[in-house]
């Protein structure tokens, strides 16, 4: 298996399959330029989240090599302008939008971005940068996305939970290959819920466990009083 520096793009978006992902993570440990590049690409994953397929038109494909040459010049400007981790959309961009009867103001801060993120919402960071796995429970219909990132202490874990109504008290546990469990974090779901009509925001929580990512076989969202909302195999 060969690892190329450009694999960082597919890695940043969570598109590599298991073997390639492991190989790239090994490479990442030794490659400062890929590590730097990766941190710059984290925002793209957030931006692309939930965007549906774009119709591919019939026009002739452009010459890719031309694009790449062009990129080199543009990249210099881009590097100067880049402000990592924030997403500020100026309406000066020429996009006028009225949605749901609300006129967007002069500057919009993205969900999951903005102040929360500038101050480092750890859940959003892990979800953007970590290795992601998702599952939808066939009976509760809850949707869980778990993202993990190896850390010196063990594993950093982020959870994005949606299609859930409350009131509930929940906890996220890591179930290890040995069968043992470790708690990750706990939270309450208010009656209006998360990621449902009328309450579109998802719940994002963050925590960690003391074992390596590969020691965990799945993450379960458990409900106090018994029951499981969703189980996310990793």
């Amino acid at each position: 298996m060969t690892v190329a520096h450009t694999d960082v793009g597919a890695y940043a978006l969570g598109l590599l399959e298991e073997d390639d992902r492991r190989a790239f993570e090994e490479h990442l440990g030794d490659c400062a330029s890929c590590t730097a590049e990766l941190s710059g690409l984290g925002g793209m994953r957030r931006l692309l989240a939930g965007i549906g397929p774009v119709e591919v038109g019939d026009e002739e494909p452009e010459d890719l090599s031309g694009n790449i040459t062009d990129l080199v010049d543009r990249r210099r400007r881009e590097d100067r302008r880049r402000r990592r981790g924030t997403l500020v959309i100026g309406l000066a961009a020429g996009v006028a939008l009225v949605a749901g009867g609300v006129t967007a103001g002069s500057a919009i801060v993205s969900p999951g971005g903005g102040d929360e993120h500038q101050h480092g919402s750890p859940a959003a960071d892990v979800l953007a940068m970590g290795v992601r796995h998702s599952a939808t429970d066939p009976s509760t219909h809850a949707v869980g996305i778990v993202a993990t990132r190896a850390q010196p202490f063990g594993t950093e874990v982020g959870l994005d939970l949606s299609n859930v109504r409350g009131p509930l008290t929940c906890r996220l546990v890591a179930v290890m290959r040995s069968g043992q469990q470790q708690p990750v974090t706990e939270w309450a779901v208010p009656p209006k819920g998360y990621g449902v009509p009328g309450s579109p925001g998802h719940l994002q929580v963050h925590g960690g466990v003391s074992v390596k990512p590969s020691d965990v076989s799945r993450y379960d969202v458990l409900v106090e009083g018994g029951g499981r909302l969703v189980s996310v195999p990793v």
Partner: protein
Amino acid sequence: MTGARLPRVVLYAPKYGGTARRSEEVLRRVIVAEALSSLSRPHREVLTETVMRNRSVNEAADILGIPLGTAKSRVYYALRALRIVLEERGVST
């Protein structure tokens, strides 16, 4: 499951009301979709067949009939191109 309890740990609280959040979400999607449509076809295609359709780069390579290495590097250049288009539209990533 009866009665709401005080959260023991709440690490993320939505900052905006539902409508404002939704309009930002719509705005993000509109801008990103528009930026995607300005990419070259191979770039747009590879992002469509991977991240938009929840496919691995291996699956997308099969579907597009291109080598895996090509698909991976195309994802990379597509991301870079997309970021530049977005920045030109006032979106910093």
